């Protein structure tokens, strides 16, 4: 479980001071949890704070009982992995070499046979086996995104945090990506936390939804509770109706 306790963060942006929190919420173990909300709600900020990419001003975050502020980063790297939506990439690096970096917490760069096996599994899991010897600059944005997700899966952590993994992906690849993430949660027993923009993707693929607005959590719970016209209207500040679609509830907002 990820426990977020009275976490507050303030930073200056072009439009003035942005304040996140105080946020207090729990992210349950297992399954897929989606963070949703309008732009600027603080979803990515919260996710990157949990992933210790961004420091917190006040409060405490615990992942599987470890306080992220006081636990050594190299130990956390075996429990928690985090991926931003945009990544700097080196041109002289193949997909397989990139995925190999996910094993750094274990082998510090000296890949063992077990590492190789985990790398192969992660690559196969994201259907990248045909692309594994391609250089990153020869890939499309979506393929590169998948390669990075394979890297964090190869890290073999219980918690996997992804900031907008569907960014840059077309409809088909978005569906595939979310399918694989749900499989990672169900088959590999990972806890996947994703920031999503499309509420309908969250409704279909996530088990839990945390809805944020203006730096605070406004609703959190199982999908059925959040997929409610009145709740979504309040979260997104725009009229939303929830209808029963062929595969589950659908939010209609246009």
């Amino acid at each position: 479980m990820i426990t977020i306790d009275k976490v507050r963060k303030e930073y200056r942006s072009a439009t003035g001071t942005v304040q996140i929190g105080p946020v207090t919420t729990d992210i349950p173990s297992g399954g897929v949890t989606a963070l949703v909300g309008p732009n600027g709600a603080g979803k990515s900020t919260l996710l990157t704070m949990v992933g210790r990419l961004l420091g917190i001003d006040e409060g405490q975050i615990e992942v599987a009982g470890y306080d992220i502020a006081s636990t050594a980063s190299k130990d956390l790297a075996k429990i928690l992995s985090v991926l931003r939506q945009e990544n700097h990439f080196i041109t002289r690096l193949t997909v397989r070499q990139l995925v190999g970096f996910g094993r750094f917490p274990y082998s510090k760069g000296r890949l063992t046979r077990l590492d190789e096996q985990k790398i192969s599994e992660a690559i196969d899991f994201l259907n990248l086996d045909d692309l594994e010897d391609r250089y990153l600059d020869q890939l499309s944005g979506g393929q590169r995104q998948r390669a990075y997700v394979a890297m964090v899966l190869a890290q073999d952590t219980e918690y996997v945090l992804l900031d907008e993994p569907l960014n840059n992906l077309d409809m088909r690849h978005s569906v595939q990506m979310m399918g694989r993430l749900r499989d990672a949660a169900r088959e590999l027993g990972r806890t996947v936390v994703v920031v999503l923009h499309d509420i309908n993707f969250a409704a279909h693929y996530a088990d839990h939804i945390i809805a944020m607005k203006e730096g605070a959590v406004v609703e959190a719970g199982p999908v059925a509770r959040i997929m409610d016209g009145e709740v979504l209207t309040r979260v997104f500040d725009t009229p939303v109706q929830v209808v029963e679609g062929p595969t589950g509830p659908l939010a209609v907002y246009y």
Partner: protein
Amino acid sequence: MAERTTTHDGRRLEAVADEAAPVELSTAPADAAGELGVLSAPRRMRARSGAFPDGASQRRYWIVLAVLVVLAAGAALGLLAIGNPMPVGSRGFWLIAEMRVTSLVVMAVVAICQAVATITFQTVTNNRIITPSIMGFESLYTVIQTAAVYTLGVAGVVALQGPGQFLAQVAAMVGLSVLLYGWLLRGRYANIQVMLLVGIIMGGGLGAVSTFMQRLLSPSEFDVLSARLFGSVTNASAEYLPFAIPLVIVATTLIWLNARTLNVIAMGRDVCINVGVDHGRQTIYSLVLVSVLMAVSTALVGPMTFFGFLVATLTYQLAGTHDHRRLLPLGALTGFVVLAGAYFVMNHVFYAQGVVSIIIELVGGTVFLVVIMRKGRL
């Protein structure tokens, strides 16, 4: 090297397993293939995760390395032997060769310093179009030299010679950069781009101070000074080497031991933190080592602005890998070949000694443009 060979063999055996019956595979060295075979259902040759994606690029790397070793040896021998008036093998020949060995050692030290420092610096800053020399090392060197001549006249050049003065200059340059990193890379608004900008502006400011003082020098003083301000191995005195070499060995060894972490640092801050590498600490640690190397090189031979940049750019093209354990040695060797080659050409083709930095910048700039035009990337 060893672990990669094992992996490679494992893979190869795995490929063989496609044809042979899988039962046969449980024999001694094939256990790797057996395990992997069970796990990856469609058994086939996997790409590699090590420094090189395939055997071809690995072979290419070793061939390039071998060619560079031959070139380096050739240039070194050429510099020692050609133009030596005594018959080869005689006592007089070795006497003259021994005197030239000093400048070869200086070249090797400078090549290692500049190559290792520039590659590390570009990795840490995630930027392949800058060089550590813009961070104020050379401007500080220029200011020190100019100020000495300005205040003491021609005697100032002499006053700056000697091991103590050499070490003091190294200390001043390392001190300045550590101050800069410590100030700009710690705390709340730590930002490497701001650090680079401040470094460049400080370099520019120091350069302006030097130019102002140079304006006020007499022509003869200026003449003496400008000889010092051209990077040249003849600036180096053999008495500095016992101090320079240990410093370079220590700094280079520490960078080498950290090479696997450098591979991660190249991936940027977020990936670093994700895999548990303390990005801030590693950045400052690497930059301090870089500043030691740059300071030694600059205090030894003077400014070499373009050299490290040229060597690093060539190294990336030649190496074909991201792995610093392969890049760093190749870079040092490339640096030596470029430097020794330039001296060889200047001494024995154009008979114009002492202006080697000019040919390095001319050839270097051309090579750089050609590479950019042809490949379209760094």
